[in-house]
């Protein structure tokens, strides 16, 4: 009577142990990456098979880009506040509003240009095939693909 119960339980315990073993060993890398200082960059290293030297170079580029990005964002925010103030003071598109909007658009364009430049620099630091893959992926994620006609709907 006890032997079949023992076999049944042993089978189930073995299945659970096998599941847990495979799961934890398979996801250990993901967990380790998540607890790092810059998990996004760690992911980039893993996803695009970067060497330590390439990763170090990309990390430096990333940090330099982010500090510049923060400054550009600050200027865009400042310009947005200026536009909001001008819009609140009138009920017409004044030359000042026009000028502020143009400046705001230029700041955004500059920001986008710097971002694309960063992507190109990063892709050039990667092995050629991975660089191509990175560029295709990141452009798909960041450059708007909506056609102009769709913006009216």
């Amino acid at each position, binding site marked *: *009577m006890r*032997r*079949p119960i023992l*076999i*049944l339980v*042993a*089978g*189930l315990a*073995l*299945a*659970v*142990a*096998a*599941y*847990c*073993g*495979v*799961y934890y060993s*398979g*996801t250990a890398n*993901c967990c380790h*990456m*998540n607890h790092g200082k810059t*998990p*996004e*960059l760690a*992911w*980039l290293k893993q*996803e695009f098979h970067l060497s330590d030297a390439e990763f170090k170079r990309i990390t430096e580029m*990333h940090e330099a*880009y*982010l500090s510049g*990005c923060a400054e*550009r*964002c600050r200027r*865009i*925010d400042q310009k*947005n506040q200026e536009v909001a103030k001008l819009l609140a003071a009138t009920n017409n598109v004044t030359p000042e509003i026009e000028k502020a909007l143009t400046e705001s658009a230029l700041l*955004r364009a500059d*920001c*986008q240009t710097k*971002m694309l430049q*960063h*992507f190109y620099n990063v892709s050039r630091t990667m092995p050629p095939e991975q660089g191509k893959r990175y560029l295709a*992926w*990141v452009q798909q*994620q*960041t450059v708007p693909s909506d056609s102009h006609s769709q913006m009216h709907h």
Partner: protein
Amino acid sequence: MKPENPMQSDEGLRQVLHQWKVDAPLPPRFQDQVWRRIERTEAEVQIPAWVLLWQRLSAALARPTLAVSYVTILLLTGLLAGYLQVRVTRAQADENMGARYVQLVDPFQNPHR
């Protein structure tokens, strides 16, 4: 007393049985009663399904080949389920990390800008 020829004796008995006719009438609703008795007997000896299942399972697990097969199948199922779950978790983590990287480098992903 032994019959002189058993074959002849059987033949005689067969003839007598063929000629034998029962004239006594059956009691009323005889067939119904018979069926009811059969049903009652079956109900009395009916074993619960789980007991039957357990008995069959125990009998099966008592055979070493079946016991080994059972354990092996469960082990493989566990391994396969773990592997599939790892694939799903990794795909989700990749997607999530990719999105986080893009948010980090693309200021236009921030709705306030």
